[in-house]
């Protein structure tokens, strides 16, 4: 039988703020354990939460970037369960009245082309602390620095049909969130985490099968891998006459195994109720609209604009708009006078090589535009320009000054070129005779010889007419 895979994703992203969700502790990563803590995030008796405006603003922008409806009224609720890294015995989250619902993510599926996956909801919540199980033998150690960090949870509809598609969705989701400056989405720092719900059903069926929830995946590649393994497990199980049980499964990246997590049935009775410490979150339509207006241009719109206005190819426009920093750099180079196509050529090759290594651009947009202009006006050759580009970081000389210093300015004046041409022709009487007998493809040989004689400085476009004049005889 042919099976269809049905996947829905729950993504937690840390909202970019300076202080925590409900207290004024810092959110910095990597501080010594239990140093960014206070009565509120330690859950001390008598402490009360106060909501961070910036977390609400970023979450609202995230919801708008995902085409969600942001609600003018939403409610914080307590999610009750015991765990040693959950200081209050409940997590402040949102339940039946979340910040935003009904959004979508448009992305390129490896199998189905351009598709839209639904976003069920986006809500705001606080993170728990960190349990360290390997520090002290027989004990669990608790660090509460992360407790109270602001998170947005983004729940997708079960619209994804393959592990590769799930990965493509995540890639685009991350791109959007980074673009809009909502989160740094760094899985290694825990600022983006993914849980995946997966089920199978006979191809053509429209009812959902029993799902399992996959956890503990630390990269997008592992999400794809874990989903494949779990999908295959379910198919094998069902084909052997078994039944999938609804449960949580942990992925072990080292062994490539997916195994069921032990959990008690009552641990799922979270006894949600509205948090009486926090009045309803009320946002005006006007404010929500203003946040929409404040969103930066998102990657899709930007790519389209680069194609239609600047005439870039779909490929170049896609590479450049993939990251906000790259696109901003590109536009700055164009604004400094470069034409779009040349700027795109330079950025997708030379500039991006450095950027991918260091995370920043070593040459200012103004200098790159200057270098492009030198090539355009035949002052230097493209080859020479690449050498000059390599010399630009680490000093503030203009590209022309570097070209002069390295002696890379092209020679285009016909007197000097004529002298070189005469020398070359005089030294190659055999080739001259063959040329004159009709072997015109030897022009390439003569141009090459002139270039060589000039030490690469001759302008190849100017060399040819000078040679042609003399070779005619």
């Amino acid at each position: 039988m042919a099976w269809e895979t049905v996947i829905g994703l729950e993504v937690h992203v840390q909202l970019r703020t300076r202080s925590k969700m409900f207290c004024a502790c810092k959110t910095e990563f990597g501080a010594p354990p239990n140093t960014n803590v206070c009565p509120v995030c330690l859950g001390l008796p008598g402490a009360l939460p106060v909501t961070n405006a910036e977390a609400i603003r970023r979450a609202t922008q995230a919801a708008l970037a995902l085409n969600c409806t942001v609600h003018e009224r939403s409610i914080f609720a307590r999610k009750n369960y015991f765990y040693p890294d959950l200081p209050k015995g409940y997590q402040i989250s949102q339940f039946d009245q979340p910040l935003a619902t009904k959004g979508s993510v448009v992305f390129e599926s490896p199998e189905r082309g351009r598709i839209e996956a639904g976003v069920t909801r986006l809500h705001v919540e606080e993170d728990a602390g960190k349990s360290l199980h390997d520090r002290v033998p027989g004990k669990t150690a608790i660090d509460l620095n992360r407790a109270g960090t602001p998170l947005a949870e983004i729940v997708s509809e079960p619209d994804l049909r393959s592990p590769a598609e799930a990965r493509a969705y995540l890639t685009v989701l991350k791109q959007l969130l980074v673009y809009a400056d909502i989160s740094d989405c760094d899985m290694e720092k825990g600022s983006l985490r993914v849980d995946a719900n997966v089920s199978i059903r006979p191809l053509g069926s429209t009812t959902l099968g029993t799902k399992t929830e996959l956890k503990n995946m630390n990269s997008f590649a592992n999400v794809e891998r874990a989903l494949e393994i779990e999908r295959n497990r379910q198919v094998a199980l069902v084909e052997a006459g078994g039944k999938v049980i609804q449960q949580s499964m942990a992925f072990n990246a080292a062994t490539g195994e997916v195994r069921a997590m032990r959990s008690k049935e009552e641990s799922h009775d979270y006894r949600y109720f509205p948090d009486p410490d926090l009045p309803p979150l009320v946002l005006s339509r006007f404010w929500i609209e203003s946040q929409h207006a404040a969103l930066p241009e998102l990657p899709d719109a930007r790519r389209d604009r680069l194609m239609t206005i600047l005439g870039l190819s779909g490929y170049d426009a896609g590479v450049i708009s993939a990251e906000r920093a790259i696109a901003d750099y590109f536009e700055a180079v164009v604004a400094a006078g470069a034409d779009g196509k040349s700027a795109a050529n330079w950025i997708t090759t030379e500039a991006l090589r450095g950027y991918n290594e260091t995370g920043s651009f070593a040459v200012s947009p103004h200098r790159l535009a200057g270098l492009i202009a030198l090539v355009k006006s035949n002052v230097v050759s493209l080859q020479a320009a690449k050498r000059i580009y390599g010399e630009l970081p680490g000093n503030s000389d203009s590209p022309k000054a570097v070209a002069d210093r390295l002696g890379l300015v092209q020679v285009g004046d016909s007197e000097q070129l004529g002298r070189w041409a005469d020398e070359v022709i005089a030294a190659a009487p055999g080739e001259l005779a063959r040329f004159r007998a009709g072997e015109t493809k030897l022009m390439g040989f003569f141009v090459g010889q002139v270039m060589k004689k000039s030490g690469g400085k001759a302008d190849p476009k100017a060399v040819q007419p000078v040679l042609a004049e003399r070779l005619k005889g």
Partner: protein
Amino acid sequence: MSIGKEQILHVARLAELAVADADVPTLVEQMNRIVEFVAQLDEVPAGEEAPPFVAGPAELALRPDEPGPVPLSHPIKAFAPEFRDGLFLVPRLGSMEDA
């Protein structure tokens, strides 16, 4: 609706409260009295759409995103039952593993 021993024990597990066997009969009796007492509310007509009460301000006031927490006047180790190298310690998770 009446509450039995099983339900008391289930709720006690949710609340992480040890309940001694000897206390169960009294608890069953008292819980039933309390639940019967509060069930008086059944007679109040209030449909799905009746708005629930909200205590305090009608709208949440937000805090600017500025670090500056309420300081601790004495260190964590002064009140923590087990605290070593900057970390709270608890026994192994046992039956709560993966929960």
